[in-house]
């Protein structure tokens, strides 16, 4: 539904009729859409529409039954989570997947693993290069914490943080690796209005300052409309709408399938 023909490299991500099912139950059926480099794309749709499953396909947690994912114009039948991370796909989870027993700053630093250069022995014996690297990592983490206004909690055990804050830490963990594509699964779930406003600000900043492409799942239509320039609507694993917020809102199928059922 994009209005004009794509120029090469214009799309960072393409999903070509991907299908996925659990024990015969279809979660996603023949789904296709494309994400422009540098845009914020929102996936919306009622619960069980297959949104989270889709994200899991995108960074390889699930293997699709058929179809392919094209990332940075490379075609993948199935991309392994590691591979995805190495290629710069960041990800947060619907119900936080943080490392609960570790401090905030440690959690954020784990995001840097794929940038680790110093070897085992260097780190074991604290050799210069390992030290330098550790310091660099720590500084990057510090700056991310500051960016997300988390310094106050830097040494707190993540498990003990409020839900909203945890979401923020998870964002930081994905962010620090400098992803080209960021997959956010309901980054504002269970937040009050202020927290939501803050979070959307962070996301737009990331998108603007770091030029990171963002694909996010969100229920709050208000937020979506304000945040994203591109909306894909799913219902029962099928795509029922794809376009600008305005287009989507005008789309009768969407109204029928989604807005109709929204509470």
């Amino acid at each position, binding site marked *: 539904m994009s209005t004009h023909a794509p120029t090469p490299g214009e799309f960072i991500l393409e999903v070509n009729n991907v299908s996925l099912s659990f024990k015969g139950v279809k979660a996603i059926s023949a789904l296709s859409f494309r994400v422009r480099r540098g845009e914020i794309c929102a996936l919306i749709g009622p619960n069980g529409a297959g949104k989270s499953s889709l994200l899991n396909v995108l960074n390889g947690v699930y293997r699709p039954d058929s179809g392919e994912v094209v990332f940075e114009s490379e075609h993948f039948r199935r991309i392994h989570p590691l591979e995805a991370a190495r290629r710069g796909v960041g990800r947060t989870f619907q119900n936080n997947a943080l490392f609960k027993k570790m401090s905030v700053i440690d959690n954020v630093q*784990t995001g840097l693993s794929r940038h680790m250069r110093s070897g085992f022995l260097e780190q074991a014996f604290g050799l210069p290069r390992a030290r330098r690297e550790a310091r660099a990592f720590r500084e990057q983490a510090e700056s991310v914490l500051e960016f997300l206004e988390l310094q106050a909690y830097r040494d707190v055990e993540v498990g003990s943080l409020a839900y909203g804050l945890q979401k923020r830490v998870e964002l930081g963990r994905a962010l620090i690796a400098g992803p080209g594509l960021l997959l956010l699964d309901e980054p504002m779930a269970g937040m009050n209005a202020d927290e939501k406003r803050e979070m959307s600000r962070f996301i737009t900043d990331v998108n603007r300052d770091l030029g990171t492409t963002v694909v996010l799942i969100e229920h709050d239509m208000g937020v979506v409309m304000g945040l994203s320039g591109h909306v894909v609507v799913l219902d029962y694993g099928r795509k029922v709408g794809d376009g600008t917020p305005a287009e989507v809102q005008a789309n009768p199928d969407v109204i029928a399938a989604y807005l109709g059922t929204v509470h």
Partner: protein
Amino acid sequence: MSASIHRLPAPFDHAPIEIVERRLPWGLLALLGVAFVLLPLLGGDYWLNAILIPFLVLSLAGLGLNLLTGYTGQTSVGSAGFMAVGAFATYGFLLREPGLPLPLALVAGGLFAAAVGFVVGIPSSRIKGFYLMVTTLAAQFFLEWVFVKFPWFYNHASSGTISAPRLEIFGHPLGSAEGRYLLTLGTVAVLTWVAVNLVRSQIGRNWMAIRDMDTAAAVIGIPVERYRRLAFAVSSFYLGIAGALWAFAYLGTASAGSFDINRSFQILFIIIIGGMGSIAGSFIGAAFISLLPILLSHGGQLVFGGSLDAGQVQNLQKVIFGVLIIVFLIREPEGLVRLLAKLRARLAVWPLRF
């Protein structure tokens, strides 16, 4: 991409880290001073041979298991098996390479154990949690059998036991209690330092990440399988050296029987009681588990004198251990180390402090 990170505002202060790093050494140095200088002087044979040396070796073993279980979240009940590998390998190197200096032999033995540990860890990519434990149990029994079965390992001694070759470092004999104590202490000190480096490094963070949630770890780009196997190897390296020290610095002799399943359980208890995922916890747990029995039996002798049935003391001890393990699992899953931390916290706010 990291370039763009630098477009973000410059780092905030890292005072907390500085403080941590500035504060640590003093307590540590004092501790090491006592351990290296005072204890050998004041210790006496009974203390060194029967209490301090085993305590240190068990701490080292606990440390090794803690890296695997406490930090990477893979429970193992095969620790003793890896200790055995270390002991027999070290013995083999010393026996067949007479020129080899003791420290190198220890390291070689450790590396050998690490290799075995790595192999045992291979299934960890496919088998998880409770089932993985079974793998380690299998390794335990298999290794025990190997070191009973093939006389080559113990130089065809019909007794099946290996006994310590002359212990010496660059000509200095270490046969005396003090010597063996210092050998053990030195090894433990170095390896503890390494362990601290590791758990504070990115590697350590990755281990803990895998422990806390392996799927997420993979998603953020941590090669989970490789780090699992790495943990097995490192842990086994520590256990291997612990095993060698157990055989040569402590017992003076060993057979497969010295490294049976009960030893594995003992080491597991050390980290349960001391504290999972804590270096200090390994030491505290070891101190506890090696001192309590001695205190109890001494106490028993003091109270009842010769008339006491030592067996009952032992039974009592078993019960006490069991109760403690359960109590710790229920009340303080993070072990004694956490308990002490809380204690310190209390003392900190104690009026007299201000």
